[in-house]
């Protein structure tokens, strides 16, 4: 199983290189850097924080979009070309294919996060850049897993990307949404308020708190770095859950 897994992971990396993903990522990082420089030039004061903040926010979101698109197109292409059927016709367990693909995407996520961190080394202290880069890699890997699962289940690029995008937005906004639902402007006694509040609490329970991961404030020094252990545990547990859902779906698909 491990040999097949490693081979599939290696082919995923190769696919990333052949589809010019590194160049696209570097182009995206370059664009984010130019936009950050532009915002710093416009700022009257504290231009450094504008540069860092704009760069980190743009590159974080941009890389998530890039990775999600890459994962969805790769997997759909493989399904459309019947390459998955060919692979599974050999003595390769479905779990090996899934985990091999996921390992490849995680490796790509790590490379992308390192690319993104390099320009920051000249502007921010190393420890903060390292923490941010690791967190970004974890976030990208998590999104890779979500998109892989969504693509295996939905089998089309557009629905898979939409589901992954919606998940990302929700995971980043869920804390704020929960807080808004408890604000004094809502009518507390209305049944609709209570239903929505309970529903949001349930969703929050099942969501990873992505708004607390790879926050730009870590780089700006405006907030202390959170305890790494708790965040790592949350990301890991959610990743395992996504992998389990993905495997469950993959084993049920009858090609």
């Amino acid at each position, binding site marked *: 199983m491990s040999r097949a897994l490693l081979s599939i992971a290696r082919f995923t990396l190769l696919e990333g290189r052949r589809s010019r993903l590194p160049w696209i990522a570097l182009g995206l990082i370059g664009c984010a850097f130019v936009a950050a420089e532009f915002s710093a030039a416009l700022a009257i004061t504290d231009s450094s924080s504008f540069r860092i903040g704009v760069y980190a926010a743009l590159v974080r979101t941009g890389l998530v979009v890039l990775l999600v698109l890459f994962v969805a197109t790769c997997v759909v292409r493989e*399904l459309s070309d019947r390459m998955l059927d060919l692979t599974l016709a050999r003595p390769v367990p479905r779990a090996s294919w899934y985990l091999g693909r996921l390992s490849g995407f995680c490796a790509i996520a790590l490379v992308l996060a390192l690319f993104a961190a390099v320009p920051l080394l000249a502007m921010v202290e190393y420890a903060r850049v390292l923490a941010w880069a690791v967190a970004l890699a974890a976030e990208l890997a998590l999104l890779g897993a979500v998109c892989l699962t969504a693509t295996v289940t939905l089998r089309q690029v557009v629905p898979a990307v939409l589901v992954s995008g919606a998940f990302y937005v929700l995971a980043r906004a869920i*804390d704020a949404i929960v807080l808004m639902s408890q604000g004094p402007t809502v009518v507390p006694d209305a049944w609709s308020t209570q239903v929505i509040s309970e529903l949001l609490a349930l969703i929050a329970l*099942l969501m990873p708190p992505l708004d607390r991961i790879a926050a730009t404030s870590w780089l700006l020094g405006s907030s202390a770095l959170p305890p790494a252990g708790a965040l790592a545990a949350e990301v890991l*547990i959610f990743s395992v*859950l996504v992998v389990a859902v993905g495997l*469950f779906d993959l084993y*049920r698909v009858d090609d």
Partner: protein
Amino acid sequence: MGAAERPVTAVPRAVMVLLALALAAQITIGSVREGPATAVSTLPWPPSVPTLRVVALGEEAVLARLIMLWLQAFDYQPGVSIPFHALDYGRLEAWLERALTLDPGFQYPLLAAVRLYGDVADADRQRRMIAFVRRHFVADPQQRWQWMAHAVYLAKHRLGDLELALALAEELAAAPPDPAIPSWARQMHIFVREDMGEIESAKVLLGGLLESGEITDPHERWFLSQRLHELEARSDDAGTQGKPSSRAASADIE
């Protein structure tokens, strides 16, 4: 693309166990996770209108509404309710200005000014909000008369400044004729004068209004006529008690 599904029994037991364990772990960690942090922050100055127009991407009316929702949510930062008097009203006014500039037909900023932020027990802040409404009333009296009317109420009853209430009511009355502005709003200055003790002036204005033919509704005419009679009765009472000012005013009218 619609692949057929195999039965659930086709899924290896290890995967099922992993799914159940991961779900249980996720729910556990989600329930023990520290809740979202709340922190009271101060209201920032708004960006310039050109910047906001860029951000709006052509949807300025939507951005104006989002600004107002955000501003409203700012007063109620989750977990902490910020009293209005703790807000920086200079910045608040700037945000209201921006929302109104982005969508001049949007009534919410004016409503918020008089009904939310003007309802604070602080005379300076109340005056500031009244001045905001007064300044913007001129630009579109047809749409904004109701906020001006509310500003009159605010000045008269909450602020207790009858001079200001009269000035506002007179501006309201002086607005160009338009069926959108009801006559009661235009008549407010008469009743403010009455409250100020300027009964003779109120009588003259009310009488003039009735004679002008502007009031066509019979019920309204009857109500105003009754009011005029009351004023005349009060004026006569004041006259018999020898109030020189009322007498002089009556003489002027005659």
